[in-house]
């Protein structure tokens, strides 16, 4: 990413990203690289959280930006932030890959065996301080641990009720209750 883009204000940089997506929709390859430079680490983080394998995750990063190239015209800034749109595409592609390929159940929730410690890059505050994502993260922290973990497992691994119950080794009814109570807690928290 160019230094000029990094040094802008949060508002400037979000605007650059929206403008770049608009230019991508018009077929501007250089703008796609701008979008890639500004967001690929976050997109990769979303994907590696789900598929765990660097090689698979990097293939999926390519798929995300090829999708962006073909569908940038569908991005509507009125409906959400660019990074939410990109992360949604990334998650859907990663979960579909997971279903086709199978899960690496031997790894814990925060284990990324193919990544060296120095692969972690500093968080881009302008990406991470989205009001809604912070609100959700804060609300998740208010939930009971088993409720929160069940919801996060479902989200990041695409697991159904019965698959979750098997993974965390609790009766199906218990698991369903955790999910429902967790969602009720999130609703109350997010709804203020």
């Amino acid at each position, binding site marked *: 990413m160019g230094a000029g883009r990094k040094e802008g204000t949060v508002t400037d940089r979000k605007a650059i990203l929206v403008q770049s997506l608009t230019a991508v929709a018009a077929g501007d390859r250089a703008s*796609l*690289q701008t979008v*890639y430079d500004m967001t*690929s*680490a*976050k997109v*990769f*983080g*979303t994907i*590696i*959280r789900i598929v765990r394998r*660097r090689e698979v995750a*990097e293939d999926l*990063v*390519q798929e995300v*930006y090829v999708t962006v*190239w073909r569908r940038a015209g*569908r*991005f*509507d800034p009125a409906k959400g932030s660019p*990074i*939410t*749109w990109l*992360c*949604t595409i*990334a*998650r*859907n*592609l990663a*979960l*579909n890959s997971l*279903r*086709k390929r199978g899960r690496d159940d031997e790894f814990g929730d925060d284990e990324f065996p193919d*990544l060296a410690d120095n*692969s*972690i890059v500093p968080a*881009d505050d302008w990406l*991470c301080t*989205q009001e*809604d*994502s912070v609100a*959700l*993260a804060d609300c998740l922290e208010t939930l009971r641990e088993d409720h929160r973990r069940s*919801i*996060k497992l*479902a*989200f*990041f691994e*695409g*697991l*159904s*009720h*019965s*698959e*979750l119950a098997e993974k965390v080794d609790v009766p199906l009814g218990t698991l369903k209750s955790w*999910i429902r109570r967790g*969602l009720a807690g*999130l609703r109350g928290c*997010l709804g*203020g």
Partner: protein
Amino acid sequence: MADTTSPIDDDAFIRAGEHALGVLEGEELSAARRAMLADGDFADAVEWWTYRLGTMAEATSPFAVSAAVWRGIEARIDAIEASDRSAAASLADRRMSRSSVAALFAGAAMAVASLVLFLATPRVSEAPDQSPSSQAGPQLIAQLQDEDASRKLAGVIDMAGNRLALNVSGLEAESGKTPELWVIPAGGAPVSLGAIPGSGAFDRALTPEEVRLLVAGSTLAVTFEDDDGQRHETPTLPILLAGTLDQV
């Protein structure tokens, strides 16, 4: 978008959250799919949850990607553009056979279906359905969506009543164009089911010939075509949405 003042009751709102999270299966999933079609408030609640839960992905740690990834993206885009130019030239020359188009649809159905909203895929066999709607007769359901969920089509075919019901969003076409629905029987050529609205609900009776084509395993697809009031013989690329019909 719905909020916590949603008109649906608390239980349904939480069920919408389960649907958005992708944990429902079996009859619970079927019921949620039907509610998505029949109950706009439930669909709004699912959208509310989908957006809220979707922000969870943004909280992941960023990781540096290899330098080779961008080169791979450029190579893939080069290949796609070359392929698109070739396909466009073929269609322009009217040399592409209907079976060739069918093969394209089949490929697109596999590709797009794999990207259809993850929560739309039942993971276990359906339990006996006791709901009033299912007791009315067998139904076929298709839930089509593109990668970023900007274009969606949910369709229900009532096999007993010979009716087609759609709920569509994001398919608004430019002036002079209209979205057109296609059915592609397994191994067959695409057959137009006519123009559909770009958004909103749509319901009509099916002809006996359409009922014959609309069977489980057939592919439904949408393209943009000239808005001339005609059903077209051959679809125009690109394929906007495609996916298979599943029996409920």
